[in-house]
């Protein structure tokens, strides 16, 4: 059909300081460049996903972009009902002829920042703060731990999860407390994959003069000097590309796995943190990147088998 882009954000909302927000930035960029408006909806409960996606399709939106693994079943269902509409989903695989599935190798990106963390750490202890304890977040944690161990076999990785309700994504206070707790146990570099909760983590690090690592988008600017780097997950690019390609009538259904090789994940180096990344750190991380791309290093993906035994 003709090009009428739409996006359905997930529970976190388009300002979740995480991948929803990444998507938001991506489609906003598209809007400003192409000047085409898009329909949007933020779901507030489980049932609205399917409702919203179907509504988009009914309204002739095309393509319809869904965010997050939770929207998988809904997309699958609606995609069957509307075979002539194109759908795309981020963070989930839906096997339909009119669906493009975009998944990221978060573990690879996490691996790299793990390497940096281990090397930046003086105490030999690095920390991870997750939002809700769900497989996706364990995937981040697992990759991060592998990277750290890779750089320094006897580094200790301390992991915390914030909570078991969606509020775990918006609890900076608790994030800060978890971080302080880790600092007290000797951690001096902490990686947060916790949406809004991360704000508290980075702040705590800044207050304590220790290193923190951002996630999803480049968050180095938040606290120049203590933001060691950010693990990039380019959902913004992915979302942008979905719209762009379809606007040019080049929408391709099927799997679209974005790892280091594809530039879908990575780590951020900019004016805010260049002073923090020593030459050897950069060398090491570049090496690791090369090895992963070359397949010399295989980073264990938690979600592949629900295990993290590296």
């Amino acid at each position, binding site marked *: 059909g003709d090009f009428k882009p739409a996006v359905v954000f997930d529970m976190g*909302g*388009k*300002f*979740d*300081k995480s991948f929803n*927000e990444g998507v938001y930035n991506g489609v906003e960029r598209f809007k400003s460049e192409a000047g085409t408006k898009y329909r949007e909806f933020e779901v507030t409960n489980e049932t609205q996903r399917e409702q919203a996606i179907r509504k988009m399709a009914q309204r002739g939106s095309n393509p319809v972009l869904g965010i997050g693994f939770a929207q998988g079943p809904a997309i699958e269902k609606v995609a069957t009902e509307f075979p002539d509409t194109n759908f795309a989903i981020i963070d989930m695989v839906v096997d339909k002829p009119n669906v493009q599935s975009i998944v990221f190798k978060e573990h690879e990106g996490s691996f790299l920042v793990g390497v940096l963390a281990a090397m930046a750490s003086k105490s030999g202890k690095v920390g991870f703060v997750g939002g809700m*304890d769900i497989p996706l977040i364990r995937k981040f944690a697992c990759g991060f731990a592998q990277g750290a161990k890779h750089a320094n076999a006897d580094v200790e990785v*301390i*992991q*915390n*999860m914030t*909570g*078991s309700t969606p*509020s775990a994504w*918006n*609890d*900076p*206070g*608790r994030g*800060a*407390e*978890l971080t*302080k*707790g880790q600092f*007290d*146990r*000797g951690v001096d570099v902490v990686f947060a994959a916790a949406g*809004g909760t991360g*704000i*508290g983590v980075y*702040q705590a690090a800044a207050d304590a003069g220790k290193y923190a690592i951002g996630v999803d988008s480049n968050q180095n600017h*938040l*606290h120049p000097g203590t933001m060691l780097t950010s693990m990039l997950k380019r959902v913004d690019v992915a979302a942008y590309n979905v719209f762009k390609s379809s606007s040019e009538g080049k929408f391709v259904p099927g799997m679209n796995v974005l790892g280091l090789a594809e530039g879908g994940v990575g780590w951020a180096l900019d004016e805010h943190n260049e002073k923090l990344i020593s030459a050897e750190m950069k060398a090491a991380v570049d090496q690791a990147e090369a090895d992963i791309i070359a397949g010399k290093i295989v980073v264990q993906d938690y979600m592949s088998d629900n295990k993290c035994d590296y």
Partner: protein
Amino acid sequence: MEDLINIAISTLAGTVRVSTPLILCAMAGLFSERSGIIDISLEGKMLAAAFVAAGVAYVTGSAWVGLGGGILIAVGLSLLHGFACITHNGNHVVSGVAINILVSGLTVVLGVVWFHQGGQTPTLPQEARFLPIHFPLAETLSEIPVIGPFYAKVISGHNLLVYLAFALVAVTSWVVYKTRFGLRLRAVGENPNAVDTAGISVTFLRYRAVMICGILTGIAGTYLSVAQNASFVREMSAGQGYIALAAMIFGKWRPVPAMLACLMFGFLDAVSIRLQGVVLPGIGEVPVQFIQALPYILTVVLLAGFIGKAIAPKAIGVPYVKER
């Protein structure tokens, strides 16, 4: 041994930080409920205050003005609650629920409109925050084993609002038990008729009570966004208002016990944070969720085990109408 002590001390320090907003809210709830007004909108008031305080502090660059803003909005909401419950005999719980919902929506809406950061307020510069205060000798003394670090980390090194919170507990129990206002406050929650026939305005008395409640929740909210953190994040009160309510009941509507309940909860929380991922001999790694649930489970156990029946003020939640 050495780091065991460190863990212990950092846990206590964490306890103090986590308990602070709970204590402020518990005292707030105490004033309101002692006057007979049920208040489950502590959560909402705190959230609103956090938002306004952060916003104002950012715009003016002054934590103090931020505090003022936070207090103002919280008092405003208290007055709304009072208008519904005191003036119009509305249902206290519904009014509370309404305020919570209203605030959780409005903070984000206005946040987006005003600050364009998705409901978050811009990060505050250090000078616009309440920063940790380090007591004299904290550094030097910290050499002394145990006491040193304890002094440095647990006693010293918190921001002003933390100390204010504890001071306010003392003030609260003084006001409630030692002043005329306190006497009348306790009376109006038990038997408004007695207060009325004693020539005291029930309405005015209750309004004053809820306003004090507002002031305290205002401080609590400010703590969240201007002291503990450096910006407002949507829903950042994350249920602490309810915990504070529970703590206040746990303390049987009495200031010091309520504070202890908050500290207990803060402590359990701080412990659980540090227990995450520990490997118990035999059992292996305990699931995170269990550790996280620990404070809540233990609260129930303690409540059942040691705390007797909690009797609420008799007239609580009952609108005061003479002509039945």
